[in-house]
């Protein structure tokens, strides 16, 4: 069986991870001194990815119950990385912090994606009746 809520959370997570990966690609490009040219088109794509993350991160993190844990780190990354050129001009200490915070967000989201996929795999082997029956017999007894 498929759990509607689980599928939605997984979809949000996959989209978020895609955007964070894209942002990382741009940051890596910006930090690569061997690639001196940053085109206007690359800056446009970077801004596009950044704006998607700015719009969606808070909503998605709230849906995943990760808002308190990750919101600060995510916003720090998005504020520091204002453009590819801006990333290139950051001092070393700031770059290190940027990478650490990006890594913190990415790791947590990646781990959660794995957990949700495991849940989905477990559910896929169950029929609707078996699922509700299991929920029924596992329901804890509550004292009146």
């Amino acid at each position: 069986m498929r759990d509607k809520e689980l599928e939605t959370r997984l979809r949000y997570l996959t989209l978020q991870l895609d955007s964070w990966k894209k942002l990382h690609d741009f940051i890596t490009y910006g930090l690569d001194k061997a690639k001196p040219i940053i085109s206007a088109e690359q800056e446009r794509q970077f801004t596009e990815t950044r704006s998607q993350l700015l719009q969606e991160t808070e909503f998605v993190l709230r849906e995943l119950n990760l808002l308190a844990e990750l919101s600060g780190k995510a916003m720090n990354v998005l504020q520091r990385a204002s453009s590819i050129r801006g990333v290139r001009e950051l001092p070393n200490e700031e770059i290190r912090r940027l990478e650490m915070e990006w890594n913190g967000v990415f790791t947590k989201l990646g781990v959660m994606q794995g957990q949700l996929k495991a849940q989905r795999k477990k559910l896929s082997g169950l029929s609707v009746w078996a699922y509700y029956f299991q929920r029924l017999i596992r329901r804890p007894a509550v004292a009146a």
Partner: protein
Amino acid sequence: MAQVKRLQRRAFRARILLYRAAIFFVETRLLILNADPVFHDRALGLFDQIDGIETRIIRTLSDAITVLLAENFDGFVVEGDAPLAVEQATNARQHFPSLEIVCLVPPTNDERHSKVATQQNLKIIHAHASDRRLDYYLREFVRSLDRPSGTAAEGIDPCHSLIGNLNQFSAAEILQMSCLGQRSGRFTFKSGRGNSEIYLQQGSVRHAVFDRLEGEAAVAEIFRWRQGRFYFEEGIISQVQTVDRPWAHLLIDNLQKLDETLELVSV
């Protein structure tokens, strides 16, 4: 007599079971183009509930073209406002003639979009339909994509004078070589998208067929394949002629189209 009938009934039931199992295990792959998949996700939520499909969500047309070039999908769903969605779908149609494309758009009074959709063989689904109705339409679309063709059939036959893999040689390269050699015979291409055939006669393409496509449209489709196998059988000539242009013209046109597709990717 009764026993024979019973056996026939059993065989029939077994066939139905096998067919159902095949439908269950073969996943339909859908690529969905949606610019705002987090906040406009009604259809995505309904797709999530359909068993036996794998979806991939993409936000821009250039990303979609990149993915379509690299992987096989059974269908392409373009979601958005009618003018933009139909334009993007038309653009995709130019580069992927055999792909099943559906536009998920809000209802509009503008007749032009439905006219273009009919011309370009695009399906239109109204995104503002009720949940139940939209779910029905989406399931119908997914059902229409179910087809038995799957992975390429393998095997070496002694009558195949040339056998190879499209990963190493593109269709353009092997056709160029055969046409320069003034060959006559049949090329069969097998990939996850299905099987296709190109017939050569004295070094020129005489007939090409892929799924419902014939002639130059089928040649154009095969040009884009980057995965699959091919083999050539010498001496098999087609009675039908659907291509009447010289090979060089076909090659130039199709390479130009391919360049345009790749340009779209780089935008």
